[in-house]
C-alpha cells in the first residue's frame, strides 16, 4: 500500500544552510497494518508524512501510495489517503456536520454518500450528541473525534496520522488509539508517527526508528528485540541512537 524507496528531502535555510531532513530512507506498509514512525522531535517524521500526503515533494527517491506516485499522480494519491496531524486544526465557526460535509464534498463525494458515511462515522465515534454544536464550543476530545471523522469521511484505504495524540489527555489519547486499531481491523493501511515509546509498542505492527533523518532500524517489535536484545522499545531506541552517534 505504501512504498518508500530511497526517500531524501533536503531543505535550504538561509541561516542554517543545507538541511537533510530525510536521508535516504526505505520502508513499506501493508493493508491491515499499523506502521509506526518512532523518533524524537526533529527526526524527520513529519516531513516524511507530509511527502506521503503530497504536501511536499521529495528531493529524490520514490514514494508510492496504493500504487500511485506522490509526485506524478498526486491527485490520485489524495483520493486514497486520510490525513490527520496533531497540528491540524478545525474551522471554529462550523459544526461537526458542516465540517464533515465540506470535507466529503471536497473529496468528491455525493450528498448521499456523505449522509451515509457521516451517520455511520458519527455512530462509531459517538459524535451524535454534539454534531450540531459549533466547533469552538467543543472539548479537546470531541474536536479530536471530529478530526478523525473529517480525515476518514471519504473512506480512504490509507491513513496517515502524524502524532495524533500529541497534546491530548490520557482518556482522549486512548480513544484515538482505539480507533486506530479499529481502522486496522477494517483493513486499512495506517502509518502513524509518534515520539512516545509506549504508544508505538502497544499499537504498531511494524516500527521504523528514525533519528536525524536516518532510518536506524525497521521491523516488528520482536525483530527489533532480536537485533538489539536490551529489553523494551525505549532501551532499543536509545541504544540505536547511541550507536548512530558514535558513527
Amino acid at each position, binding site marked *: 500500500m505504501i512504498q518508500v524507496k530511497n526517500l531524501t528531502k533536503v531543505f535550504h535555510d538561509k541561516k542554517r544552510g543545507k538541511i537533510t531532513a530525510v536521508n535516504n530512507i526505505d520502508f513499506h506498509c501493508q493493508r491491515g497494518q499499523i506502521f509506526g514512525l518512532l523518533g524524537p522531535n526533529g527526526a524527520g517524521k513529519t516531513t516524511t508524512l507530509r511527502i506521503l500526503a503530497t504536501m511536499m*515533494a521529495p528531493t529524490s527517491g520514490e514514494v508510492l501510495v496504493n500504487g500511485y506516485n506522490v509526485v506524478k499522480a498526486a*491527485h490520485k494519491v489524495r483520493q486514497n*489517503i486520510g*490525513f490527520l496531524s496533531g497540528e*491540524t*486544526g478545525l474551522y*471554529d*465557526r462550523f459544526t461537526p456536520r458542516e465540517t464533515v460535509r*465540506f470535507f466529503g464534498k471536497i473529496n468528491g463525494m455525493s450528498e448521499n454518500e456523505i449522509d451515509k458515511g457521516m451517520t455511520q462515522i458519527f455512530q462509531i465515534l459517538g459524535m451524535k450528541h454534539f454534531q450540531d454544536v459549533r466547533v469552538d464550543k467543543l472539548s479537546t476530545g470531541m474536536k479530536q473525534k471530529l478530526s478523525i471523522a473529517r480525515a476518514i469521511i471519504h473512506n480512504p484505504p490509507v491513513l496517515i496520522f502524524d502524532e495524533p495524540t500529541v497534546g491530548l489527555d490520557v482518556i482522549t489519547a486512548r480513544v484515538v488509539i482505539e480507533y486506530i486499531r479499529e481502522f486496522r481491523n477494517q483493513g486499512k493501511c495506517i502509518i502513524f508517527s509518534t515520539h512516545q515509546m509506549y504508544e508505538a509498542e502497544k499499537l504498531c505492527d511494524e516500527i521504523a526508528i528514525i533519528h536525524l533523518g536516518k532510518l536506524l532500524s525497521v521491523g516488528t517489535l520482536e525483530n527489533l528485540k532480536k537485533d538489539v536484545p536490551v529489553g523494551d522499545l525505549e532501551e532499543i531506541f536509545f541504544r540505536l541512537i547511541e550507536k548512530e552517534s558514535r558513527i
Partner: protein
Amino acid sequence: MNWNNIRLIYFKEISGAIRDRRTLISMIIIPLIFYPLLFLGIGYFTMMGQEKSDSLPSIVAVRGREHAPELMEILEKNEKIDLVYFEENPEKALEAGKIYLLIEIPEDFNVNKSQEIPRNIVVQYDSTVQYSQVARRRVTNLIEDYRQQIIESRLEQLGLNVHYVQPIKTQWADISSEERKTGSILGMILPYIIVILIFIGAMHSAVDITAGEKERGTLATLLVSQLSRFEIVMGKYFTVITISATSMILGLIGLSIAFLTPAYALGELPLIKINFSFSIFFLFFLVLAPLVGLASAILLLIGIFARNNKEASTYVTPIYMGAIFLGMISLSQGIELAEPMFFIPILNNSFTFKELLIGIVNWKHILSTLISNIGIALIALFVAAYLFTRENVLFRS
C-alpha cells in the same frame, strides 16, 4: 481547474466570514453605519458651530472710542456687535476669550476727513477662536462700509461721481451646473473614501482565510484534499473580492444616505444633487471593479506569504497606508496627471473617478486605468497562486 471545487471553497469561506463578528463589523457595520454617522456627525457639529457663532453678537472692546464717534455709531447700530468698555487690560480679556476683538483708535483719527493722510486702526483678534474670526469678518465689513462713506463724501465735495474711482465693474457668472459642482466635490473625497472602504472591508478576511488558516493548522487539511492549489486560491480570491465589493457598495449606500440627508452632510454642502447618466454610472463601476480585484489580489498575496495573522497585519499596514496616500492625492485640487501616471493603480482610479463625476469621459484615461489595474491584479493573483505551491511559503516556521 474545476469551477465546482472553486465554488465549494468560496461558499465555505463566505459562510465562515459571515459567522465571524470581526468580518461583519468591517464589512457591514463600519461602511453602512459608522461612516454615514461620522459624516453626518461632522456635518452636524460644523453646522451647529457655525449657527451658534453666526447668531451670537460679537463682543468688541474699543480703546479710544471718543476719537471716532462716526465709526462708533456704525458699530453701535449693528445688532451683531456688542461694544464693551475694557479700560483695564483689554489685551488680557482678548487672550482669555472674554472679548473677541480689540479695536484701537489713535487720538488723531477724527481729524478733517478730507486730509489726505491715511489713519491707522489697529484691530487685535485671535485666529484660533471661531468667535474672534466671526467678529473680525463683521467689523471688517463695517469698516469697509465706513470707508466707502468717506470716499463718497470726498468725491461729492470734489463734485465727482463714485464711478470716477470705479472705472471697471466686473460681473462673474459661474457656468457650472449644480451636478457638476457636486461632481467636483465628490471627485475630491470619493476616491479616498472608496480606497478606504475597499481595503478596510477585505483586510481582515483576506488575512484570516490565508495566514489565519496556516496559523490554525486548517490549511493542511485542504492541501491533502482533492482540490488543486489553484482552485483553493481562486475560491479564496473570489471570497475576498465579494467581501471587499460588499463593503464598498454598502459604504457607498451609507454615504449616499448621509449625503442625501438634508442635515448638511459635509458642513459646506447643503444637499448633494446626484444626477449621473446611466453611462457615467456604468463607467464608474467599470473602473471600480478592477480596483476591487487588484486590492483583493494584493491582500491575498500578502496573506499567503505571511506566516501568521500578526505577520500579515504587519505587511498589510504599509500597503494600506500607501493606498490611502495615493487615494488622498485626489483631495488636493489643481493637480493634473500626466498620461503615464494613469498607469499607477489607485492614483489612476482617483483621477478617472474625478473626471467621470464631472461628466468627462476620457477613454485614454479609462483604458490606461483598466489595463494597469487588471494587469497588476493578474500578476498579483498568479504570484499568490505560485506562492501557494511553494513548500517554503506554506510550511514556513
